[in-house]
Structures are given as structure tokens and as C-alpha cells.
């Protein structure tokens, strides 16, 4: 993307007034999307974002500037702006010789999205719309979206890192509205992988459309969700977001360092039921949060965070790990060149258990079965989290019975981790997600086998 010599000159300029560390992050991202809504191809959109972010670190202070001007002049101006923001005032420091590191990508791309005709992409949407509408007259609206992106990044820093990655992502989602006597309900399905258009060799959009439509239709007959504290069984795949919220964020070193996490100072302690092994793995081939290098040039890693209930380690980015004199865990990510990286999850999941999921349900006399969770939110300092149920059922006498309407579940991370008393042997990854932190969104994956939490608060309207 840019010549090594040029990058070296920019790094030297950034450290001229005495910074300790400098980094150049170059990004060139092309994206395209197509929206089919209200029985029409509403629009196709193409986007291009290209630029560089430069940071300089002096002591505890980071100076940052970004530019869309990738000429030498543009980069030098940004380098000086980043340096002056740190108010560094000393003699110039050393830039180590840049050494190109090639990290193998866990994602093999076969058909780059730009090589696929737009018409082929649009046809997927038309096909999905037809199938969804054919599921019943009660399906009154359908919206289907296709999106792809190709993001080339190059990261170089004064420690000598010089690394690049070519990240492709392809996403498809469909959302249906069903209308009945009790009003409208919605159902959604999505699939995404960090690969090209070959995604659709394995994924049948018609099947996704059917599932989304049935989710909406099922909810038309749903009862109001119960309210109060009860056992909750979370289905495989659809429930990984629980751990993303309940403990994932609390294990991010930037929050831990500021004592803004309930998990601060707990490494080596038992923080969860011994059934729980939690892993964050950026190397999971073809999973939504996988990449060759993170946005600081560090190869993706597989990190065990909690092993059999014991807290093993936090997740780290470059800044936080430098302060601790250790290596980054490959969790330094950023939404784009416009922002600084911070500690972010990749693919976060609970390792498989041993129990037949059917036994878990049969063993639950009353409670709620959640087939699919929506988004969630956590306060890492208190551990309190919420997340939405987008498909859920009552469990009565050990059987899944009636569907219930949407509602939130609320709980406390450390408490919930200790209240997991059954873990299924049916591990699966969930839908592609976008994790938001401090206003930045990055693609993440999550997964879990079926599991039971002995007590969660279900926030329904039924008394």
C-alpha cells in the first residue's frame, strides 16, 4: 500500500521530538451493499475509505492524528500533529529497522466480492424476499440486505513491526414483519463470514428467509414474557452474546487497569462454575471476528481467559501490554483509521460440555428457553448486564412449550458465571455481531453450547 522507506521516514518524523513509540496505520477499505425492501431493490451503495492514522506515545500520553491524504506531505503533517499533541520535548528517538512479518490468515478467500456481478448479489435478495413472503399471508413486509467489504491494512511501528492484512467480509441478513390480530412481530436471520462470495456455496439464503419468516409468525401467537427470577436455558449458538456481555468486556485490560471491571485483581481466582472455560480466539477460521493480524500488527491469537472456572488472563492491546512488560494478546482493534485502537474481543466462546441438551431441558421443571438472543449491554464496573431475547419459549414440566414475546434478561456477570449448572455437548457459533465500545464498532463472533443458568431475571410484562 505504501513503500517501506516512506513509512520509515514518517515514523522518524513522528519521533523527532522525543516520543517513545510511534505507529502508522494505513487502511484502504471498499464496501458495497444492496438493500431490497418493500418488494423493491431500493438501492445499491458503494463506499471507499482510505487514509492513515498516526500515533505517538510519550509516557502515559498518546497523541493521535489521521489523514485521508496518503502523500508524503500529508503523512508528515499528520505525524507532526500526533507528536505535538503529546507535548513531547526531547531529542529524537530510535526507530527499529522495519521487519516484514507475514502472518497466515485464518480466512481463505476464493471469490473476491468485487469480481461478482452486482446483479448476482441482487438476485440473492430477490430470491430471499420471494421465499419469505411465500411462508404465509401474515408476512406483510420483508427487508433483505447484502453487504461486502474488502479492507486492506498496513501497520508499521517504531518497534520494527511491518505487517499487513487483506480482510474480506461478506454478510447477508433478512428481516420479516408478520401482522396478526395482536399487532406486528418481527423475525430476523443473518449470516456473515470473513470470506468472499463463496459464502453462498454453503449458505442457503432461502433457508434463512424461511427461518426469519417463521420466527416472526411464531411470535404472533406468543404470550407476554414472564417477569421475575427463574432458571433460563440458553440454546447453543444463539446465546454466546451472554458471555460477551457477562464477562468478555470485563476481561478487557484497558477497563481492568482503571479498576472499571469487577474482574480486576482476580487472576488465579475461581470466578465461574467449573463447567466454564471461556476462550477468545482471533484465529478461528472463517468466523466473523477472525483475522491474520489485529489493527496493531500483532498476529491473531487464541487466548484462554477462564479455564474450568478459574480466571487465567485478560485480553490485551499494545498500549496496555507495553506498560505491563508483556506481549499483546492480539486484541488491539479499531473501527477505522479515524480512531485509536483499544482492547476488543474477536470470537469469544464457551468451550463444549458433556451433557445432552435434551437432558438439560427435561431436568428443568419451569423456566425460559432462549433460542436466540439479541444484542446486549454491560456495565463492567458493576457487572450488571442486559440482553434481549429475540426468540424464546416457556419451559413447563421439562418441556419447551409456548413461544413468548420479546423481553430483556438482566443479570450480574460474576453471579451468572457461578450459576451455570449444566453445559450441553452441542457447541455452535452464533450470528455475526458488531460489538460497540466507546462509539466504535468492530466485527465479533460468539458461541456456546446449550447451558442453564439457575437464576436470571426475565423482564416480561406478565405478572
Amino acid at each position, binding site marked *: 500500500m505504501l513503500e517501506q522507506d516512506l513509512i520509515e521516514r514518517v515514523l522518524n518524523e513522528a519521533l523527532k521530538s522525543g516520543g517513545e513509540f510511534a505507529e502508522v496505520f494505513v487502511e484502504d477499505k471498499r464496501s458495497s451493499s444492496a438493500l431490497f425492501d418493500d418488494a423493491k431493490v431500493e438501492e445499491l451503495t458503494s463506499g471507499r475509505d482510505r487514509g492513515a492514522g498516526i500515533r505517538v506515545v510519550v509516557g*502515559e500520553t498518546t497523541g493521535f492524528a489521521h489523514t485521508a491524504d496518503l502523500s508524503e506531505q500529508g503523512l508528515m503533517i499528520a505525524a507532526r500533529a500526533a507528536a505535538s499533541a503529546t507535548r513531547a520535548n526531547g531529542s529524537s528517538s530510535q526507530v527499529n529497522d522495519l521487519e516484514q512479518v507475514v502472518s497466515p490468515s485464518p480466512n481463505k478467500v476464493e471469490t473476491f466480492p468485487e469480481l461478482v456481478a452486482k446483479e448476482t448479489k441482487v438476485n440473492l435478495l430477490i430470491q430471499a424476499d420471494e421465499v419469505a413472503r411465500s411462508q404465509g399471508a401474515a408476512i406483510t*413486509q420483508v427487508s433483505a440486505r447484502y453487504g461486502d467489504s474488502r479492507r486492506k491494512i498496513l501497520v508499521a511501528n517504531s518497534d520494527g513491526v511491518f505487517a499487513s492484512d487483506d480482510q474480506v467480509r461478506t454478510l447477508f441478513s433478512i428481516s420479516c414483519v408478520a401482522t396478526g390480530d395482536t399487532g406486528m412481530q418481527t423475525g430476523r436471520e443473518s449470516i456473515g463470514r470473513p470470506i468472499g462470495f463463496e459464502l453462498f456455496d454453503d449458505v442457503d439464503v432461502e433457508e434463512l428467509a424461511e427461518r426469519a419468516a417463521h420466527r416472526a409468525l411464531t411470535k404472533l401467537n406468543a404470550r407476554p414474557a414472564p417477569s421475575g427470577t427463574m432458571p433460563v436455558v440458553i440454546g447453543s449458538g444463539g446465546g454466546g452474546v451472554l458471555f460477551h456481555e457477562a464477562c468478555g468486556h470485563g476481561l478487557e485490560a484497558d477497563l481492568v487497569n482503571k479498576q472499571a471491571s469487577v474482574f480486576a485483581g482476580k487472576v488465579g481466582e475461581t470466578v465461574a462454575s467449573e463447567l466454564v472455560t471461556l476462550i477468545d480466539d482471533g484465529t478461528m477460521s472463517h468466523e466473523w471476528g477472525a483475522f491474520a493480524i489485529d489493527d496493531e500488527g500483532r498476529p491473531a491469537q487464541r487466548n484462554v481467559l477462564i479455564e474450568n472456572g478459574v480466571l487465567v488472563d485478560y485480553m490485551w492491546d499494545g498500549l496496555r501490554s507495553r506498560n505491563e512488560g508483556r506481549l499483546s494478546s492480539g486484541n488491539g482493534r479499531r473501527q477505522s483509521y479515524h480512531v485509536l485502537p483499544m482492547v476488543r474481543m474477536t470470537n469469544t466462546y464457551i468451550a463444549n460440555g458433556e451433557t445432552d441438551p435434551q437432558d438439560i431441558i427435561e431436568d428443568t421443571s419451569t423456566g425460559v428457553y432462549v433460542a436466540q438472543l439479541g444484542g446486549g449491554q454491560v456495565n463492567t464496573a458493576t457487572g450488571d448486564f442486559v440482553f434481549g431475547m429475540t426468540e424464546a419459549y416457556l419451559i413447563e414440566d421439562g418441556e419447551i412449550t409456548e413461544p413468548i414475546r420479546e423481553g430483556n434478561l438482566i443479570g450480574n456477570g460474576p453471579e451468572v458465571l457461578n450459576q451455570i449448572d449444566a453445559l450441553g455437548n452441542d457447541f455452535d457459533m452464533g450470528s455475526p455481531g458488531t460489538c460497540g465500545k466507546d462509539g466504535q464498532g468492530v466485527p465479533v463472533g460468539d458461541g456456546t453450547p446449550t447451558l442453564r443458568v439457575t437464576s436470571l431475571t426475565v423482564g416480561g410484562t406478565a405478572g
Partner: protein
Amino acid sequence: MKAELLKIAEAVVGKAAAGEQVEVVTVHGKETEIRVYQGEIESFTAAESQGVGIRVVQDGRQGMAYAGSLDSDVLNETLEEARDNASFGTPDEFQAIAEPDGVESVSLDLLDPSLANFANEEKIAMAIDLERSILQADTRIIGVESTDYVDSINTSAIVTSTGIRRANQEGGCYVAASSLASDGVDTQTGFGYSVGRSPANLDIGKASADATERATRLLGAKKTESGRMTVILDPYVTAQFLGIIGSTLSGEALLKGRSLFADRDGDQVAPNFLTLIDDPTDIDAFTATEADGEGLASRKNTLIDQGSLCGFLHNTYTARALGTSSTGSAVRSYNSSPGAGPLALKLTPGESSQSELIEQVGEGILIQGVAGLHSGVNPVSGDFSAGAEGLMIRQGDLAEPVREVTVASTLQRMLLDIQNIGNDLERLPMKSSGVSIVVDDIMVSGV
């Protein structure tokens, strides 16, 4: 900058072919973002960014393309992409770029010249002051996770082949802090902020007091019993709900059969003391603007008048498709095509202060914060359920703190169940102003 952006946009529009409508939006932003921690600068970001969004409508087919650059080669490529994208759209007779509609825009002075001249050292000092003030305010405050000073000056231009030509400039700044409190057993968090058009308007004292009080008053919070209760929503919480209610009144939701208020025009959807307006011409609103996302004059729209539903918000497309006129409610950023929705919502305030409302309510909960609204509210069905924290109200006074409960109802019922509106209108850094409201019969789930 306005002239420069207009010139670039005009040049692209000049390339419109016969029978082709072209709309070009050009933007430029300049931002300073300072984060301090423990008396030191943690990060200092100085940034300038630019972008272009081009929309082409040809024979009722729409195509869109954008780029984060205003270089001439990029502009040409973006126009070509937008044209190519348009060729795949389904022809739709109502699809069109906006045309001037004769509505004069209200002139708003949204850029305080002192903002551009404010020294970085002073901005840094404000953030450090705020952090120190919170740390010193209460012995139970154990830290401030982040304290930010942020300002930006944004300029944008829109030019269309249909005769629209307009440029706007606005500036704003804020300080915000996230605080941590502990009583040795329990930890709680709070936040405080202050928003203005110039750093001189920022109220560090208020931001500090809010951050301190919000965190400390929740210490020792517990779940409460489940049951139907009367709740008072803090202005900040009300504003979040208004944003969702506003989105259900979008002409786009109506047109596409996704509005729970479809066919309810003229119905009593709220008590008669409730009036909800969307007024981006109100200069005190954080999101005040002279024009909407299609370059039409922004205007005051009444959505609910004394409890009665009186309208939806339209952009050019939704208005044409539904046989009405645009309400100047196109919402977009440069990299998206226009949607339709609220720009600056406000409930007409009532008579009572929040403490008077607490006294009148007698028994209930003051909801200070909600979580999970993005996942817990379905704006199509109206079902909502959100995590909540706050303080119990007992015998007309604030009592013990509550956390880890949910509040649930439907948006339709909640509007009808509003019992009172406070007089504490608060301008917030979002599309909606806030005010305390009293809502009856909300299902609270706890133990």
C-alpha cells in the same frame, strides 16, 4: 470552507447527464478530542476529515456511492459508481431527488466564533478540572474512568441538479466524565456532562455534581420485588424513549408497514396534556439545523397534539409515495441515502419540578438509567423491556437505591399511561430533549 464545499459539489452536479438527477453532499469536519486520566492527558486527537456522498436517480432507479475524500479522481469514481448502482434499482415512480419547495429556512447561528480560537491548553485544563472536581467531591468516589473534552466544527454542502444549493456550518463542544464510587463493598458508576456551542458555555460544576451524585446514590443498590408500579423517568431516560417513539412516526416506517401507529392519525394516543413536537429550528436544541438531509428548510412539526396523533415525518420519497409533502425530515449522513425521522424532539414541559413529582407519586421508582434499549425495544411491535436502576420512592421521598431490575410495557400503553410531565426540560447531546415524566402501571421485574 462553505464556499469550497459548494464549489466541489457544484462541479460534480454539473456532470449530470440529460434525464438524470444528481445530488451531491460534501462534508468537512475538524475535531479535537482530549481524554485525561489521573491528572494527565491520556490521549489527544486532532483530526480533520472529509467526505462526499453522491446519489443518482435515473428513471426512478436510485443509486448511491460515497468516499472519505474530496480528491477529484475520487469524485469522478464515486459519481460513476453511483450511476452504475442506479442501473440495478427497481424503477419506482416516487423515487426522486428533492426539489426546492419554497419554504424559507429559519436562520440559525450555530457556530460560535470563539470555539475555533479556544486554546488547546485551556481545553485540557477544563478536562483536568472536571476530573479533579469529581475526585474531590465525595470520599466514596474512587476514580474517574474517563474524562473527555470534545469539540467539532462541521461544514456541509448539498447541491442537486434539481435546484437545491445550500451550505451549513455548525460547531459544538462538550465535557463528559464516567465516575466510579465504592462504599467498600459495592461499586457503582455514574456519568456527568455539559454541552455547549462554545467552551465558555460548559458547566463543569454541573457535570461534576451529576457524575458524583449518580454514582454515589446507587451504592448499596439491590433488586426490588416484582410488580406493577408507577415510575418517574429522569429527563435523560425520557429522551431515550422519545427517540424510539419518534422513529415509529417516520414516514418510512409508515410507508413500509412497520409503524405501530399506522392508521392511527387523529386517534388519542396519549393523555391530553401531552404534546410532542419535532423542532430543529429551536436553536437551543443540540441538533438544531437550518436544513434537513435533502437540503430542504427544517421546520417545526407537531407529532402529537394534546394527546392526539397528528402526523408523520416525511422526506421527499415517503411524501411522494403517500401523496403528501415533505416535512423537511430527511435524516442522513453523507454516506447514506436519506431516511425520514425526527431531528430534534421535545415534549412540552408541565408545571411540576421533579421533587414535586416524587412527592405527588408517593410510592414508586425514580428510574435514573436504562440499559439494553437497542435490544429490548421492538419499534415495530412496540414491546419493550429494559434494564433499569434508580431509587425507590417511598412516602413521597427518595428512598433506597435499586439495580438489576427491568421495566417493561409497550410503547403504545406507556404513552397512554403517562400521568404527568415535569417542568425540568433538559437539553441533551442527542436528538431529543429530556424532561421528567411519570408513567403508571409499568411492570418491574426484580426478585
